[in-house]
């Protein structure tokens, strides 16, 4: 059924359709509306057979989820940014124990400096914990991916993170198609645990593993993600058959046929990128884009296929490997191992800075003319940076950097983009 609702609400309704049994979450901007949405549905009886637990921290949230999942319940939680870090120990634990928990990440920057706006640093911080990470381009895809996520998680006994851009998607009203319960039931069978705490058939979960077996256990986790590379496209195809629309998968190409330049990105920015691609294609530039949906497992082979005929690749990322440059770029580079082409990393949108059509047009034009540095910080205010560097070299007690920069920028309320 078509609705015009907030992205968070769409996700809440999708999660509810998946018949979750235990939901536990701790509030953090910008995930709050999702959890409030499911909480309300449980409380007013719309969502039945579901326990909604208000916990005292994110660490508790994922820990409660671990217990519930191990005891055989379909379990869901959500967080962002600082909250994801606070539960970091449990994130690794859940993956290591093979528990099919589904968690929404409302992507938000990680402090310091504290910042509530969107970028991908939170999901990226947990990229090697063993969770599957799927990135949504639109609110429709965000809700669709949750349905796929439960099935994927339970098929593999592996937790799944569905990542959606905070504010840009979570707080945007969009037209979405909410599936019917029967459709979801037809796609997502009841949870059948691979392991369960059951007095009738006792098992010990979470034993210590020494040097003699740890490698093998970890290899199994690695192997599981490699299997996901096959399963994710299969589940995406099955989703299309059941619901009638394309959604998910490993990655998606846009006008890459004959493209000399290909832009790679994750999440909602792809929409703006596609608009610029259209404009440039109209003017005769052979440019296209690839959006990565499955960031973990990272689709090396599929990406290689998609990019190998280009002359240059521009990786546009909303995250930063401090001191190194790009995070996504590393994966892209690995995918293109042995293939000679020009690669550019563009760090953009950090802490919620708007990525504008105008900036991208200039950026992509520079790229096609190979007038880009290896690593570019899009729309970096060099004047402010240089001023701060001068200030710091002038006096030892130069004070907090962030505050000094804010003071230099002046009132921000009047800025549009």
């Amino acid at each position, binding site marked *: 059924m*078509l609705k*015009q609702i*907030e992205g968070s609400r769409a996700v809440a309704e999708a999660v509810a359709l998946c018949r979750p049994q235990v939901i536990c979450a701790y509030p953090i901007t910008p995930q709050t509306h999702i959890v409030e949405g499911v909480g309300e549905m449980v409380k007013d009886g719309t969502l039945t057979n579901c326990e909604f637990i208000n916990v005292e921290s994110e660490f508790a949230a994922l820990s409660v989820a671990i217990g519930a999942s191990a005891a055989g319940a379909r379990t869901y939680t959500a967080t962002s940014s600082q909250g994801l870090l606070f539960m970091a120990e449990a994130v690794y634990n859940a993956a290591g124990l093979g528990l099919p928990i589904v968690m929404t990440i409302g992507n938000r920057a990680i402090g310091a400096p504290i910042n*509530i*706006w969107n970028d991908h640093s939170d999901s990226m911080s947990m990229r090697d914990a063993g969770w599957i990470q799927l990135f949504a381009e639109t609110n429709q895809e965000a809700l669709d991916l949750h349905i796929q996520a439960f099935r994927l998680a339970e098929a593999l006994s592996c937790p799944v993170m569905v990542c959606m851009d905070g*504010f*840009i998607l979570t*707080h*945007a*009203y*969009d*037209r979405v198609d909410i599936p019917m319960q029967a459709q979801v039931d037809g796609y997502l069978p009841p949870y059948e645990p691979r392991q369960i705490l059951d007095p009738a058939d006792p098992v010990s979960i979470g034993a210590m593993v020494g040097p003699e077996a740890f490698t093998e256990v970890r290899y199994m986790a690695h192997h599981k993600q490699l299997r996901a590379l096959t399963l994710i496209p299969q589940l995406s195809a099955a989703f299309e058959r059941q619901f009638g629309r394309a959604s998910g998968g490993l990655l998606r190409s846009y006008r890459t046929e004959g493209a000399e330049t290909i832009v790679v990105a994750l999440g*909602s*920015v*792809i*929409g*703006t990128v*596609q*608009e610029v691609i259209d404009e440039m294609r109209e003017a005769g530039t052979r440019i296209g884009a690839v959006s990565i949906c499955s960031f973990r497992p990272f689709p090396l082979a599929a990406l290689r296929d998609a990019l190998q005929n280009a002359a240059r690749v521009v990786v546009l990322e909303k995250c930063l490997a401090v001191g190194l440059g790009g995070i996504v770029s590393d994966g892209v580079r690995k995918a293109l191992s042995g293939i000679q082409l020009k690669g550019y990393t563009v760090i953009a949108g950090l802490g919620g800075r*708007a*990525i*504008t*059509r*105008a900036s991208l047009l200039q950026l992509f034009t520079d790229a096609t003319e190979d007038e880009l540095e290896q690593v570019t910080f899009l729309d970096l205010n060099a004047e402010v940076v240089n001023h701060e560097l001068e200030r710091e070299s002038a006096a030892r007690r130069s004070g907090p950097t962030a505050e000094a920069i804010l003071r230099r920028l002046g009132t*921000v*309320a*009047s*800025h*549009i*983009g």
Partner: protein
Amino acid sequence: MFQVRIHGRGGQGVVSGAEMLSVAAFLEGRYAQAFPSFGSERMGAPVMAFCRIDDREIRLREPVMEPDALIIQDPTLLHQVDLFNGFGPRGYILLNSTRAFEALGLTEFLRKLRFERVCTLPATEIALKHVGRAVPNVPLLAGFAAISGQLRLASVVAAIRDKFPAALAEKNVAAAEEAYAMVKKIRETADAQAN
């Protein structure tokens, strides 16, 4: 694609105004995208919200840089925030004020615009009269529908009923109807003058 940018202060319903606008467009079978630009959430701080309306799926995710319409919910923002950034000469402006543009020091600015596409509206007063709260978003929404023709009044009314509980919805509907009629009249007068 038609792009609207709404300026106001926290507590004036800027965000829900954009949302209702998107719902109204949806009810007419169109695609719409509405989203806020957040500063820290506190009452009185300048806030912006955006709404795009189109007949095809909207992919663009940047803030509205070149608005086709500006809805200004609080005139005290006029000389504080760069409200007209990116605004072209053919755009629509709806300004919440009991005073005319001239009295607000915008005479020069107005000269470059299509005068039948801009108007002021005492939205806060209309809201107070019908709803009892100084939240001008609904009258401005109706006024926008009237001046731009982008939405039918019936769609605005339906969006209002979708958003508010019954009793409050009807009060807002009354406010919307008054605002719509007022702006429609201004527009008709202006059109007549133009011809």
